[in-house]
């Protein structure tokens, strides 16, 4: 019993630093990912017509009748290519990558649980991504997905072909080389790539050439998003200003996002992560203090109990000539033995249970990998940086440290009981029953 209890408090001592280390690591990886992303996109100005991707509409289902319709319809607004032409004339622009993004015609029902009841809503089956298949752009910028599972990527001059996520092949039961009908037109699947997340409907994507996408949806001459690349970062703010002024003047409703804007978003996320981390550390510190206190108290009370239980034995030891020091060291040794055994148990529990224990005791560890990747724009894949799962595995140093701590605390906890034992009068102790 005692050993298990001690084992647990030691396991806590192992798990918490391990949890902290893991959070620290995930925090660091977030930062380095951000740095990479921001460096890579320092010259990028994103121009789009809406701040979010995808749209859905739905009606409430279930018991909560009388509630107003849930959901919304997104009105699709596009950027006309003549405007793109105007933007192209701005000084300092190196390249413009055009995207045409829209929802599939088909929709699917999805049930979402909310505190107000379950809502069934329909949303598009997948998202169509039309990209300019200009080889110089494809080579220079992140235009196409990279995780191809089978087949090939799209290339310059492709038409009537698509690159799709693997979760679409499951949905439509189609495979590489099969035909798939999109907006009434037939497309050949030339490649399949890995979606960002297997389960989410939002991650079903179909890539095709921008002109194919424009034609089948009847949007020739329209684009939904522009990635404007400046010659160098000194032009970025200027270009963004010009585009914004232009958009206001002609009421185009364009959203312009630059490196600086993104930096702000990054910064808030960074701050969040940082405060989560420091909260976690505070909690961890408190829990370690509690574990330390608990360990020494457990040993203290166990040994006090033992000493009391064995009063007579102490009397006997003294009667046969054991000195105070002998008795004291005898009981100290026992206390240390208990904590040694507990230490071994603790190492086992700690190594096996560290992820569970740290997630129970440090709920915020998991929050450090939030799904809050709500950052607009596909060029920057910020979600991946954050969704890396935290792996908690205690290292040898932590384990040894906790082991040493438990043994030391065991020694401290048995100090007073052992001292009490050493002072027992043999005559009194022998009378004790």
């Amino acid at each position, binding site marked *: 019993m005692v050993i298990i209890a001690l084992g647990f408090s030691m396991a806590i001592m192992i798990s918490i630093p391990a949890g902290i280390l893991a959070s620290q690591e995930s925090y660091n990886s977030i930062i380095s990912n951000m740095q990479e992303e921001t460096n890579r996109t320092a010259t990028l100005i994103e121009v789009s017509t809406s701040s979010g991707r995808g749209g859905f509409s739905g009606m409430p289902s279930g018991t909560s009748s009388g509630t107003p319709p849930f959901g919304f319809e997104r009105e699709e607004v596009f950027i006309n290519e003549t405007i793109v032409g105007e933007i192209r004339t701005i000084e300092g622009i190196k390249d413009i990558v055009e995207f045409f993004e829209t929802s599939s015609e088909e929709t699917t029902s999805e049930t979402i649980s909310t505190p107000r009841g379950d809502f069934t809503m329909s949303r598009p089956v997948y998202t169509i991504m039309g990209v300019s298949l200009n080889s110089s752009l494809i080579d220079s910028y992140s235009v196409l997905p990279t995780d191809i599972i089978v087949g090939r990527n799209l290339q310059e001059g492709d038409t009537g072909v698509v690159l799709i996520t693997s979760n679409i092949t499951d949905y439509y039961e189609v495979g590489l080389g099969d035909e798939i009908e999109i907006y009434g037109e037939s497309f050949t699947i030339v490649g399949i790539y890995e979606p960002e997340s297997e389960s989410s409907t939002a991650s079903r994507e179909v890539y095709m050439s921008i002109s194919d996408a424009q034609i089948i949806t009847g949007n020739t001459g329209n684009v939904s998003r522009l990635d404007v690349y400046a010659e160098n970062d000194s032009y970025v703010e200027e270009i963004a200003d010009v585009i914004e002024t232009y958009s206001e003047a002609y009421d185009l409703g364009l959203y312009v996002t630059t490196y600086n804007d993104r930096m702000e978003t990054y910064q808030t996320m960074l701050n969040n992560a940082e405060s989560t981390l420091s909260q976690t550390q505070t909690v961890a510190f408190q829990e370690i203090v509690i574990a330390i206190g608990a360990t020494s108290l457990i040993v203290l009370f166990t040994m006090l109990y033992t000493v009391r239980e064995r009063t007579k034995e102490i009397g006997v030891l*003294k009667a046969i*000539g054991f000195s105070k020091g002998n008795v004291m060291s005898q009981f100290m040794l026992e206390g240390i033995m208990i904590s040694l055994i507990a230490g071994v148990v603790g190492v086992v529990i700690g190594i096996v249970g560290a992820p569970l224990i740290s997630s129970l005791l440090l709920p915020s560890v998991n929050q450090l990998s939030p799904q809050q990747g709500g950052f607009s724009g596909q060029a920057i894949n910020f979600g991946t940086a954050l969704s890396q799962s935290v792996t908690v595995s205690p290292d040898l140093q932590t384990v040894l440290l906790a082991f040493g701590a438990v043994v030391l605390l065991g020694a401290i906890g048995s100090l007073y009981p052992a001292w009490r034992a050493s002072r027992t*009068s043999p005559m009194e102790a022998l009378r004790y029953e």
Partner: protein
Amino acid sequence: MSNVVLETENLEKVYELGRRKINALSEVNLRINKGDFISIMGPSGSGKTTLLNMLGCLDRPTKGKVILDDVDVTKVPEKSLCKFRKYKIGFIFQTFNLLPYLSAIENVELPMEGTKKSKSERRKRAHELLEIVGLSTREEHKPLRLSAGEQQRVAIARALANNPAIILADEPTGNLDIKTMFEIVRLLGRLNVTQETTIIMVTHDSHVAARAGRMLFLSDGKLLKKERKGMHLVKGDLTCPNCHKEIQPDDDFCRRCGKQL
């Protein structure tokens, strides 16, 4: 060197319980020679245990001297007293008081812990002692696996471990049936003869007491003047632990089975 191993002079012990004073012992003058086998009798509360505690350096008298091997132990500082308990005295208790988690032989080795003896020497000595008390076949038994009589034999072997000047036994037969009771007394008698151990034994049983060489009486904390001779070394009191044939006190070997005594 005198032949006196233990002597008390006007020994007095007063217990104070709040305002009440209990005269547990008063004016006890005792002189015990080397090789004596003494029994002390007296009604309950007469101070027998108190006296043994004084003699065994477990408690200090209020007044008087306890001279053990020419040293007045009442003047010995607390720190060194444990040395006296360890090397000069062997205790035997009514309830045996063996350590339950140690085997018979480990219990016997216990008093030798911290002495100059090496581990193997201790083991050898414990082995010898268990043989003397007739328990060589029970060395690895834990106390709970031993009969009461066997436990008391282990306790006696333990008391002998450091070759003490005197053995103090507080009702050593109090928890035993009649047959075992006499077995134990006989064993003590034999040790007294063969090992030349000085023994002081407190008992309620007059038959047991009569097996000693001298019988003392304690009443109300005072030693009575009358002292009786016991029947120690009377024919039939000593038997071979192996074949139970009667043996003579100065025999080295049993005459029937040849066992070393």
